[in-house]
């Protein structure tokens, strides 16, 4: 029987092509696998559970197909529009969508936390009648609710960015600025100051918060240690201001000159 019928010839060609590509795939695996491992490490897993309804098919394919960053960017722009329109419920879902699609930019987490903690309480109070009408206890309750939501949001961010000082700072600032709770804010400023690349002011604010709580001795010890750790040639370290604070605390704690902190002796 002659094997030259056009259909059989085509089937043969297709099979041979697939076999060739299969072999090529196997041969290039030693090259591709380590490279893919490295590339994949930089692309966190997508967590789309519960999101499929919010996402269209096109968006899913687009994200999976290599447009993840740009999809998140465009959805963030949409989030800004939603924020401008003060659509609370939609803001909540948009924020979760953006950070689920691309949890890598800290920018998304921090800005969305700020929207939740700072802007939404203001909207809710306005919805309930305004600052003149809504009693203070109710305003405080709303602030606390929104702050807790923002904290939960930032805790999710810390799963992806455990070493980022800005996230710790954000929690501290919400406690301090929205909830007026220096006792709860202080530990977060401390943790922020302990992260790599932390801004110098984090430690200074921690010391100041200790002082506000009346923990002068603790503040004094902390500032002394801080002063010795900080580099001399870094203007942002503001060692002069730290030394001033140390001297103020020495006066408050009535520390004698003999016992006073001497930077040159203690280095």
């Amino acid at each position, binding site marked *: 029987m002659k094997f030259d*019928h*056009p*259909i059989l010839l*085509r089937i043969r060609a297709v099979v041979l092509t697939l076999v060739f590509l299969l072999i090529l795939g196997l041969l290039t695996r030693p090259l591709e696998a380590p490279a893919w491992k490295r590339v994949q490490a930089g692309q966190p897993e997508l967590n789309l559970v519960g999101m499929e309804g919010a996402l269209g098919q096109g968006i899913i394919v687009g994200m999976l197909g290599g447009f993840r960053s740009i999809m998140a960017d465009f959805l963030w722009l949409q989030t800004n529009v939603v924020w401008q329109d003060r659509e609370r419920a939609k803001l909540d879902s948009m924020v979760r969508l953006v950070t689920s699609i691309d949890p890598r930019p800290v920018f998304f987490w921090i800005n969305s936390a700020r929207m939740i903690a700072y802007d939404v309480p203001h909207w809710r109070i306005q919805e309930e009648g305004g600052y003149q009408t809504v009693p203070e206890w109710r305003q405080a309750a709303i602030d606390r609710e929104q702050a807790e939501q923002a904290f939960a949001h930032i805790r999710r961010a810390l799963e992806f960015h455990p070493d980022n000082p800005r996230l710790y700072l954000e929690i501290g600032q919400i406690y301090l600025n929205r909830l007026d709770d220096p006792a709860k804010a202080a530990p977060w400023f401390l943790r922020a100051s302990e992260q790599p690349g932390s801004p110098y002011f984090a430690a200074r604010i921690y010391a100041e918060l200790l002082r506000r709580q009346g923990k002068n001795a603790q503040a004094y010890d902390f500032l002394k240690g801080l002063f010795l750790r900080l580099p001399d040639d870094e203007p942002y370290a503001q060692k002069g201001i730290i030394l001033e604070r140390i001297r103020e605390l020495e006066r408050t704690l009535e520390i004698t000159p003999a016992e006073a902190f001497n930077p040159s002796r203690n280095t």
Partner: protein
Amino acid sequence: MVAMAESAISIRNLTKDFPVGISGKKLRAVEGLNLDVGDNEIFGLLGPNGSGKSTTIKIVLGLLEPSVGACTIYGKSSRTVAARRSVGFLPEAPYFYRYLSGRELVCYYARLCGVGKAGLAHDVDSVIDLVGMNEAAHRRVGTYSKGMLQRIGLAQAIVHDPQLIILDEPTAGVDPLGAAAIADIIRELKSRGKTILLSSHLLAQIEGLCDRVAILHRGKLVSEGRIDELVAEKQADSFVVEGLEPGGHAAVQKAIEAEGGRLVRVEKPRLSLDAFFLNEVQKRESAHEAAVVEKEDPK
């Protein structure tokens, strides 16, 4: 069939089938073709549309593979790229890259054929001169007329000095003057020792140009040989007579019958329409050119 010491083209038992769809049916384009094209001759390939001329030419050029049989060019299999070093080809209704000038186009093909940089400029200039495209060579091919395209096409076919030149309908769509110019170029190429295989529907041109022809019909060779031998009425002779008195016709007829012959017909000898047209036009062209020269220089 004429056997040569080494044929330019030698085709043996060539058959070509084309598959039709995926049903397994085949269309036979050429069947059992045996043909030789001798060295340094102009060979015409004739036949109606669908007779297998283009298929045969493509097989000679290695662009198609035969289903059965073989073809060689100066002893080398036509399926090898090396065989094409000795071949130049002008396709039917040629189309070239419109954005290149005529010279750039010929240069491009010359370099593709392996013409070295040392002799490139000289080779390109000489073929452009041969085809009479000196004045238009700097212009883009997109601005060329049909006749100019054929001539630049001829230039690209011969720039690498091939021994065998294949021309597919070289004068199709070209006016008689242009066609005559191309015919002159073909004769010039023959005088330089080249072999030319040309395929054409214009039988009058073939007749005036080719040494031998082959006629294909439905993929089969039906006739082949020298034109004089093919078209001659073998059983008759013709005498062309001048100055015969009207009454002399009867005497001539009587003399012929006395020798055992039979006068078949008496008619006026004819020039071909091509030749008549060329005569008339060329006469007037020469007169016009003379008038222009006289006007510019009354002395």
